[in-house]
């Protein structure tokens, strides 16, 4: 704020002091929010590492199982098992609020994990290896959705932490010092006006 923009009045000083109090409170709250988000982020980061490992292991299992099944039961039998698929698993996107941050939450509308008779093909003489392949892909799908949700949450948290940090810094290094400077300037100016007034009154008294 330019000095010329500051009105050196008592009411302006009162207004600026109010602003300083609010800015300092806001700064404190934002600092707490930033720390809370960082704490949440590191907690989720540890979970993300577990999920990443789970995803990698589910993918390896699914790949190993499908290759084994293609060798043992043949590609054709695997492909014809897929004909039984009547519905695709769909995901419902909901939201949850963590410290004012809206984070995504993914829920299966049609859960991919099914029992042997709900997969659509015969239970009695379908080779168990086909079920094993399907089970491993069901697990992989669950892990993918879990990982996708967590990755999005982490990205959103990072964005929010960054933005909160910018606000905290702006308050700390710009807004509050500027307001304090203005308050100091106004109070100095008011003191100067006071002194000028006293001097003027003394001159008038001497002349008369």
């Amino acid at each position, binding site marked *: 704020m330019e000095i010329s923009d500051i009105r050196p009045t008592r009411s302006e000083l009162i207004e600026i002091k109010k602003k300083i109090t609010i800015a300092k409170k806001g700064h404190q709250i934002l600092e707490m929010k930033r720390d809370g988000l960082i704490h949440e982020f590191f907690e989720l980061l540890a979970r993300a590492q577990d999920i990443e490992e789970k995803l990698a292991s589910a993918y390896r299992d699914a790949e190993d*199982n499908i*290759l*084994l099944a*293609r*060798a*043992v039961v*043949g*590609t*054709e*039998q695997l*492909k*014809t*098992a897929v*004909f*039984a*698929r*009547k519905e695709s698993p769909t995901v419902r996107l909901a939201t949850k609020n963590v410290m004012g941050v809206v984070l995504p939450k993914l829920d299966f509308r049609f859960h991919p994990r099914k*029992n*042997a*008779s*709900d*997969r*659509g*093909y*015969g*239970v*009695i*003489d*379908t*080779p*168990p*290896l086909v*079920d*094993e392949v399907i*089970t*491993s892909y069901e697990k992989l799908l669950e892990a993918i959705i879990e990982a996708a949700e967590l990755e999005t949450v982490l990205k959103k948290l990072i964005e929010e932490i960054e933005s909160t940090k910018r606000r905290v810094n702006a308050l700390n290094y710009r807004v509050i010092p500027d307001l304090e400077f203005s308050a100091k300037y106004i109070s100095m100016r008011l003191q100067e006006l006071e002194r000028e007034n006293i001097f003027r009154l003394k001159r008038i008294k001497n002349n008369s």
Partner: protein
Amino acid sequence: MNLLKREPNGGHNGGHNGSRKSHGRASNYGYVAARVKAKRGRLLRREDYLKLLKMPVPAITRFIGELEYREQIEVLAKRYHGLDLLEQALDKNQEDLFGQIYGYAKGELKDHIGYLLEMERMHEVKATLRARIGEVSPEDFIKVSPAKVRGVNERYYDLVGILEADTLEDAVDLLKDTPYYYALHEMLETQPRPFLTSQPLEDAMTLAYYEHLLETVISGHKNKANKLFISFIRKEIDVVNIRTILKAKVWGVSGELRDLIVPGGLALIDDTLEKLLEAQGTKALFEVLATGSKELYDALSELVPEIGRDQTLSQVSQRLDKYLMEEAQNFSFKYPLSILPVLNFIIRKQAEIDNLRIIVRGKQYNLSEGLIHDQLVM
């Protein structure tokens, strides 16, 4: 296109489906046994598989090309290449070979061989019904399963007709002269249509198949060889049932598990079957099995500590296949002039085709030698 040809009497034209009867013709056991014996001599032995396991893929394909599969490889070479060609040639060889044996046979023997080979046809019909219910177009079905509709052959069902039928009832009507018709029809009447999946229909077909197979063989000649054949079928039913129960324990089933049990088993019946169905968890199930059927328990005993985890059921299934193969082998030497040597040959030939595919594909997908070895039934 209708692949079904009907005889004036309403049966299939030589098709080996459940409605056919031998009409009192004499069986030619001696002739068929001699032909099968010659073919059995050409089957690969355990040492051959172990040798193949050590070879790279090109050497394996050369080895297979020098066996009796050459003819099918040459026929299919225009349409397929690489290992797909080999896999298709293996399947076609099996089909041609079984077709030849079926062609040699006469009388009751022909009927019995027909029933054994019917299993493969039943799988084709199941895959087609699955595609029909899943609204897969005939073109897409043929892309995935070219072998299933590859020729106008008296032994094939009208798979394309099933896919193109206006309604599911019309599709089932195409199976009118088969053992599956009434079971399928009944199932269609009881199942709620918008949620209908292929599962109840497929399982009804399997139940109908075994019911009809047992009925027909039991009503045939009452000689010792036939009794052994019946005993083998019952053992196979035990295997089918234990597999279903294990699947239900590991993955669960909706509805009543009893409805998925094939009646007519040999050892797993009455109290034993009830206890198996009621067993809580796979550990309890194996305790029941240990007292109910020592043979089956022994076949699986090595895997018992592992059972219950997802990945072990395929190993159980493989051990059960091996158990059935050994049983067929034991029976086959007792009565050379019966269906038993043919049964043994059919099972061993199917195992050979599966083993070759497992070795070739396993090598292609870089599966470990140990893992490939574990999947072989030899």
